Structure formats: structure tokens, C-alpha cells
């Protein structure tokens, strides 16, 4: 396998425990963009502590799926329950879910008019009502964790892509989320910077965070995921534990996909 980002380090699995508690329950979920049926009858149950990698060709609906989990996209049929809260049109529920679920975007989406520190303290101060001093201490703690505390007073435009993505992860963590969603976090990065972001994500997984990652980093999937979901044409085609998924894919579609992304 010629994955340039194959994870070579030893993974500490002592905290990676999947509990019986259900974190996210998606039942018979359907979504349309106009007349286009993007998500078709999706059923996923995520238990607390699971690390799930979602992959598939572009346009398969994988980003849309995780964006439905914090209601950046609205689903039209079926049921999504996050942390025991069902996502409906009730704005209060949506805000509650969003403050419990962290999200990292492909293009980082840091706030360019605020410093790194302000990016990290904004939501805790205004949503969680944490005092400013305390929020800053928490922010510095997480910035140290992603290894860029020295950039705290710079603006996002002065940082490299990899650094910005790590800040974005720290910003999400400052809300002390119970679930983290990653929407192609490394797709917009230079090859040299992908590793630093993946390392941060691996550390997060080692601490037992419940994670859903849309990514094409198969090395990451093999190292830390406990389940891989393969999607095509808005539906889940195959899901399995990583070793089986990569070595023994069942459906032809999966085989084709894997041969294409791993073949080069």
C-alpha cells in the first residue's frame, strides 16, 4: 500500500473504549436537494467512544450526512437523535446539539477578524457564558495540545493551513464537545501539513472522543477507526471494521473504490 500518510506510530488504545450508550441514532433518514435525492434511507447508530470513518466517491452524500448531524443541513424524512435530543425545527434543541457537537471543516472557517485566542474563546464566552479568564485558560490549554500556543495572539491569515486546521480543532474542543465531526479536514492541506493535523486527530481518538470523520486518509482509518462506512449515491453501501473493510471488501462498488484510491 502506498499511502503517503500511513500512520507509523504506536497507538495508545487504553482509553479507546466503545460503550453501550448511544451517542447518535439516525433512522430511515432521507434528504433531497430540490428534486435530487442526496441521502436515501440512511440508518446509522453511533455509540459513545466510537471512531467512525466515512468514505466514498465525491457526491456520495458523506459530507451531507455529517452536516445533518448538527443541522447545518436539514433532513426531510426520518429521525436524527443526538445525545438524546431529537433534531427538529426547534431552534433551542438545535443550539443545544450544536454546542455539544464540535465540527471541523475542510476550509477551516476560522474567523479572520479575530485572533487565534479570540477564535477559541468566543463560543465558550457567548454560548456557555464562561468567564473570560477561564475561557482563555481553557483555550491556551487546548492550543498547547495542538502545539501552537505561541500563535495565540496572531490572526488566522498569518498561519499556515495546517496550523489553521489545528486551531479549528482547538476551537471546537474549547466547547468541551462530546462528539466531534470532521468534514474532510485534510483535503485542503499541503501534503507536508496533513500529518500534523492527523496526529492531532489521532491524539483526540486516543483520549476516547466520539468521532465521525469524512476523510480519504485510509492510514488514519486503519490506525484509529473502529468502523468504516462506505457510501455511494446517497446510501450506505458497506460498513465494517477497518481490517475487514480494507482486506476483504464485500461489494463490487467498494472493491472498485478501494482499488482506485489505494492503487496509485
Amino acid at each position: 500500500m502506498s499511502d503517503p500518510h500511513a500512520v507509523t506510530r504506536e497507538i495508545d488504545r487504553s482509553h479507546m473504549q466503545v460503550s453501550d450508550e448511544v451517542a447518535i441514532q439516525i433512522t430511515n433518514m432521507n434528504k433531497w436537494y430540490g428534486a435530487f435525492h442526496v441521502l436515501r434511507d440512511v440508518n446509522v447508530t453511533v455509540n459513545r467512544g466510537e471512531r467512525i470513518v466515512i468514505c466514498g466517491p465525491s457526491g456520495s452524500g458523506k459530507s451531507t450526512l455529517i452536516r445533518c448531524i448538527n443541522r447545518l443541513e436539514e433532513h426531510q424524512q426520518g429521525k436524527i437523535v443526538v445525545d438524546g435530543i431529537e433534531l427538529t425545527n426547534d431552534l433551542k434543541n438545535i443550539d443545544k446539539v450544536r454546542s455539544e457537537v464540535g465540527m471541523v471543516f475542510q476550509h477551516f472557517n476560522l474567523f479572520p477578524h479575530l485572533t487565534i485566542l479570540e477564535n477559541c474563546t468566543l463560543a465558550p464566552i457567548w454560548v456557555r457564558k464562561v468567564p473570560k479568564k477561564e475561557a482563555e485558560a481553557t483555550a491556551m490549554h487546548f492550543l498547547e495540545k495542538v502545539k501552537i500556543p505561541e500563535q495565540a495572539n496572531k490572526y488566522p491569515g498569518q498561519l499556515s493551513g495546517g496550523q489553521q486546521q489545528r486551531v479549528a480543532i482547538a476551537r471546537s474542543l474549547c466547547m468541551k464537545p462530546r462528539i466531534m465531526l470532521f468534514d474532510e479536514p485534510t483535503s485542503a492541506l499541503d501534503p507536508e501539513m496533513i500529518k500534523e493535523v492527523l496526529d492531532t486527530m489521532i491524539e483526540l481518538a486516543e483520549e476516547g472522543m466520539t468521532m465521525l470523520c469524512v476523510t480519504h486518509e485510509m492510514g488514519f482509518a486503519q490506525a484509529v477507526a473502529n468502523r468504516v462506512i462506505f457510501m455511494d449515491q446517497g446510501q450506505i453501501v458497506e460498513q465494517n471494521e477497518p481490517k475487514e473493510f480494507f482486506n476483504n471488501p464485500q461489494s463490487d462498488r467498494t472493491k472498485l473504490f478501494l482499488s482506485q484510491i489505494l492503487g496509485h
Partner: protein
Amino acid sequence: MSDLHANSALFVRKEMLPPSDPPALESGAIKWLRENLFSGWLNSTLTVLGLAAIFFVLKLGLPWFLHGVWNANSLGECREIIAATWGEDAHGACWAVIRERWNQFMFGFYPRELYWRPVLALLLLMVALAPVLFSEKSNKLWIAGGVIAVLILWLSVSYGQWIPVGILVLLAAITGYLGSRGVHWPVNLLWFTGVYTGLAFWLLWGGTIWLPVVALLGFVVGWIAFRFASNAVGTIVGAGAGAIAAILWWYFAAGALSDTLTGLTGRTQPFWLRGVDSDEFGGFVLAFTIGIAGIAISLPMGIILALGRRSDMPLVKAICVGFIEFIRGVPLITLLFVASLLLNYFLPPGTNFDIILRVIIMVTLFSAAYIAEVIRGGLAALPRGQYEAADALGLDYWKAQRLIIMPQALKISIPGIVSSFIGLFKDTTLVVFVALLDPLKGITDAVRAAIEWKGVYWEPYIFVGAIFFIVCFSMSRYAMYLENKLKREHR
């Protein structure tokens, strides 16, 4: 090394090059001239023609300008002085008209012994604007503050009024107290910005002080209602409740309370100033009053309209779109005519709604519609990711707007907003059509109608134009300063 072919494939760098300074620019005036003015025969010709044009304009205009007379009592006297000094054929400007009619240009027919009031309002305006315009304290601000304080003292002494000094002392005391309590710049002066709106109204129009005080209290009442209601039923309903509470206050409580308080204090000095009618306003006092009130109200109104136009709620969106398109589609003069003539038909009989107030409302609505569209452009320029990131962090709509979206959208819109402001300020001269004495036509015509200044033509227009230019250019410079300050990349 010599056997290394130019096209040989292998190259290994032994050591990395350290960064070095860029080559010093070849400088010198001659090089600059050659590159910029005489780089070819076309450019050389254009340069020569340009110089010739400048020369002829100066040859015509400069003597006229320099022969100007500042001390004279009539145009005829001006001409005599010019003829005596520069010869019979000489032309010259008669700046004496500006000097002689200065007060009229500045104050219109505002009562002469009350000039200290608009001047004080202008000086305090600078104080009220400082915390809005400058977020960092600097030595320049201290110096400006000192100059303003001295001018206020001078105003007190020369008009024999203690109110300017009283306001100054009160202002310094409250700000100092706030400072000692740990409230820092600019918040420790921001309270005055709020108070200033009522204070300026009182200084300009006079009458009882309780009317503006009670009117400002309406905002406090609305705010309190908003805070309580929004905690209970959400922001939008809360905002509605706040607005209703404020309107109820103004409609039912304000008038009675103001009358009662006025009855208690009577017409004693600090609570009562001699009233000045709106038709005594004129010149730059009028232009500034309308311009500044319009600018101050149209910005927040434009923001709300822009947000409304992008709203998901069909009714809100329809109202905002309808308002913006209607106001933008109608000439300002039409709105001014509506203000001066039609509004009287619709208002209940007996209500005397001040003409300047009506004009301010119309000018504000007009400018708000334009600003709304400028800000909508700024909003549209923001990447969707900014909204999504704000949503994903759990910020609600208003917090996301206030903390994430608006700071960026307004920054993008600065050039357009300032253009609108400049346009608004210049449009204040249009009030001449509703019989108000604007500085450009109203006052100038009045001056030229006087027998001693009949025939003076260029000088008043140049003077008024110059003042407009100074004000508008300052706004533009401030906008550039602000844009620079808010620049975030590569700092």
C-alpha cells in the same frame, strides 16, 4: 564546475542561500522623470501639454486669488481697493464677503447672542464621536481633548454663560469616576455619546431640558423591557416588546412627565434655554444638524434593512425589499416635498411636527436604503463557511451576526458606506427646495440679495464648496485609516 552542462539533469545544492536584501532601487529625480513623464514621444508630448494647461489655469486664476481683498464693506469697495493696489485692469477676489457674512454662512438666522449653543454642540460632538471612531487611546486624542476643553472655556467666558463649563465639568467628573472604577476607554466616554443625542437637541432648539431627558428615558425603558422579555420569550419577540414599551412610553408617559417636571423647575437657567425656531436655522448649522443626525441613524437602520432583506421570513423580507426599492426609486427631492407638504395632511390637525425633524427623517430613510444595499453586498461577499462555523459553535442568529458576520461585512462595506455618508452630507443642500436656508444656495442667495454684495459670484460658492470638501475629505481619510486598522492579513 566547468564541465557541468547547462542541460545536465543532476544538480545538488551544497548549502542553502541565506535571504538577502532586495537590490537598492535605482533612485534619483532624473530617473523618475524619465520613467514617468518622458518615457516616449507620446508621454513627453502629454507632459508638455499638461504643464501648459496647468500654467494657463494658474495664470488666469492665481492673480485673481492673490489679489483678494479681505477687508471691505461692499463689493464696490473691494473693486476700488483692487484697482488702487493692482492697477485698473486687475481682477481680484472679494473675500471680504465671507468675512463680513461669516456668521450668516455658519449660523443662518440663528439668534446672534445664542451662537455659543451650536458651537458648543459642535465641540461636544467631537467628544461624543471620539469613543465611536477611535478604539485606542492616543496622545493625539488627549491633545484634541485639551483643545476642546480650552475652546469650551473660552466659549463660556466670551458669552458669559456657565452652562458650557458646567457640562465640561460634569463630563470630566463622570468619565473620571468611571475610569477610577476600572471602566476603560472607549467605554468610559461611550455613555456621553448616548446622552449627546438629547443634549445636542436641547442646545440647538432650546426649551425645557426635560423633553430630551424623557425622550432618552424611552430608550432605557425599551431596553429594560427587551432584556426581560427576551429572557422569557426569545430575542425577536423581546425586541418587539422593547419597541412597544418605548413607543407606549413616548406616546403616553413622556409628554405628561416632561410637562410636570418643567412645571416644577420652571424657566430657571439650567433647565430651560431660550427656544429657537427651525426657520431660524440656516447655513452650516443646518447642514451639520441634518447631516450628522442622518448619518447616525441611517447606519443602524441600514444594517437592519440589509439583514431583513436576507431574512428567511417572507413577511420581513417583503417589507424590507419593498421599502428599499421604493425609497431608492424615488428622487430625494420628492421625499423632501412629501416631508414639507404632504405629511401635514396626514398628521392629526394641530400637531406641529418640526420641519427640520421631518427633513431629517426623510434624508435618513433615503440614505438607509442605500446603505442597506451596500451592506448587503458586504454580507454576500462573506464565504458561507463563516456562517456555518458560527452555527456549528452554537451561536444563535443575533450573536453570530453581531460577533462574526457584521464585523466582517461592515469592514468590507466601509468604502460604500462612507460614499453614502458623503452623498448624504452633500444632499443636505437640497433642503433649499423646502424653504430651508442651506449654505450653498439658501444663504448665498440671501447674501447676494444684499445691496452691498450684489454681483459677487464666485467667492461664496468657492467658500461653501471648500468647507464641504474639507468635511467630506475628512470622512474619506477616516475611512482609509479605519480600513488600514482593520487589515488582518500580513500584519
